[in-house]
């Protein structure tokens, strides 16, 4: 039976002493989930733009498909990815099973429905006249699409944040595809899988420490996004990676 008070004190000691093993797991989690989100944004945002801005047959079916995938149990997705990545599977030749790459791809696939579904509704909620407006002011079709995307930027940021939260707190897919390997060159244990393992082996102190840190990480990242959004920094940043740089150059001139 766990000694809750004793284990909590032990957890706080681990955090406050800056235990290297604990913080290595935390930084690995951040790296895996951060990379997964960037990857998912790269394919999820254009996909959301395509679904929201183009009229085609079967559009409603595709939107419903992505909405349904949000609710897909992660162990089912984990199983599909496990079978795909296993040696005899269709993607077995990539050698991704039980590797960091496998976890990153797995998390990216997991959050894609969230990115696409929220992204599509954010883009669709933009005034339909914005596209025509941009065009009457001289924009080409792709420039007009970017104008629409800028209008939807708050919803897009929300979908990125929701995806990150889901990815870093994910267990099923990570466990099945990553395998929770500790030590060696291919370490795949992250905060959630470590918590699950520590509970099984009665290492409650470590599990509680990782649990507290997981909540702190989520809270901090969400808070940073809120503050940056309030300062309009993210909106400006999203309008062009070089926008700020360009402005400062122009100011100097």
């Amino acid at each position, binding site marked *: 039976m766990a000694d809750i008070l004793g284990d909590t004190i032990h957890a706080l000691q681990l955090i406050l002493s800056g235990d290297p093993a604990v913080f290595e797991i935390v930084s690995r989690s951040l790296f895996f989930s951060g990379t997964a989100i960037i990857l998912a944004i790269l394919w999820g945002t254009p996909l959301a733009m395509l679904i929201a801005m183009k009229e085609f047959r079967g559009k409603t079916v595709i939107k419903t498909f992505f909405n349904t995938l949000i609710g897909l149990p992660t162990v089912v997705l984990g199983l599909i990815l496990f079978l795909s990545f296993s040696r005899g599977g269709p993607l077995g030749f990539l050698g991704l099973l039980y590797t960091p790459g496998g976890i990153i791809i797995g998390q990216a696939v997991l959050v894609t429905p969230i990115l696409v579904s929220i992204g599509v509704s954010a883009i669709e909620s933009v*005034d339909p*006249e*914005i596209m*025509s*407006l*941009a*065009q*009457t*002011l*001289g*924009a*080409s079709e792709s*420039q007009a699409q970017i*104008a629409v995307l*800028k*209008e939807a930027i708050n919803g897009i940021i929300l979908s990125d944040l929701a995806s990150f939260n889901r990815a870093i707190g994910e267990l099923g897919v990570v466990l099945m595809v990553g395998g929770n390997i500790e030590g060696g060159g291919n370490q795949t244990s992250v905060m959630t899988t470590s918590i699950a393992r520590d509970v099984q082996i009665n290492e409650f102190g470590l599990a509680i420490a990782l649990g507290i840190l997981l909540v702190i990480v989520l809270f901090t990242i969400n808070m940073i996004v809120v503050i940056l959004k309030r300062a309009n920094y993210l909106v400006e940043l999203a309008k062009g990676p070089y926008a700020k740089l360009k402005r400062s150059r*122009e100011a100097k001139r």
Partner: protein
Amino acid sequence: MTVTAELKDVTKAYDSKIVLDTVNLQIHKGEILALLGPNGSGKSTMLKILAFIENPAEGEVTFQGEKVNFKNTEKVRLESTLVFQKTTVFGTSVYNNIAYGLKLRKVPKEIRDMEVKKSLELVKLAGFEKRNARKLSGGEQQRVAIARALVLKTKLLLLDEPTANLDPKNVGILEEVIETVNRENKTTIVMATHNMFQARKLPHRIALMDEGKITEVGAPAEVFGKLSKNLARFAAVDNTFTGTAKVIASGTSKVDVGNGVQIEVTAQKQGATAVFINPRDIILSKVPVESSARNTFKGKIIQISDLDSLVKLKVDVGKPFTVQVTKQSFNDLGLCLNAEVFITFKASSVQVF
């Protein structure tokens, strides 16, 4: 006369409903052309085709002598811009809104800043650069939309009901801007309107539109002078009525517009006549007003719509009259739907066609 743009046998349909039917029209360089017609007559569609954001289903469009097709659409779009009827602004600052088209044209920042400043001065919004465009009043947003189009100095400026739903102050500013830009920059302007008063005052030529067709084109005096059957169809437009005029003993005339409503006008007219009363010239009261005004009618409020600082009311006196009052007066009079009111206007305020 140099032709800026021309529509040749242009037809356009949405879901098998024909909205433009074999339209032929030349737009002359430097003119203000008004497209006058009731809602659904195809004015907005024609403007979208002239802005090159819609393609005709049949027929062709030429711009400065060049036939417009999918290859040169993006190029000609840089020379024609449209201000929508429904004011649309980007959810960013006024500066970014107005500078958008200039950035697309890669205009350097120093010139951009100067042009934005000048166009804001023109629409009487100097110093508004940093304000959030979506937080401005409806009239101010429409002025931003006009400034955003003007700053581009395109060869063709298209305005879709630019003053619809604006209070008189903003209408005045915009009408002045339209005239100034046409006079000083020689910008060719095509504006859609169903405001007869505006159509008579601003443009050099009027094209009457009805059910997707152009039924008449000519100078305002010519078109209004004829009082054609097409023009009579505009009876559905705010405060425009058709009826039979008869000269009365006092030397003025009375126009019987039906349902027992007889409007006294200063002109001596006999026979078929159309009249227009500017909503601004009508006094609204809860009791009859003793005054020199020759027209007083009792009716009830059948519609209330909120404009910026004004309230637009529809009063049924046998015929529906549109009346504008300030929000303050609206509240002070304690007006509501179905309230009994009186409308009063002078015989000299009635425009007779």
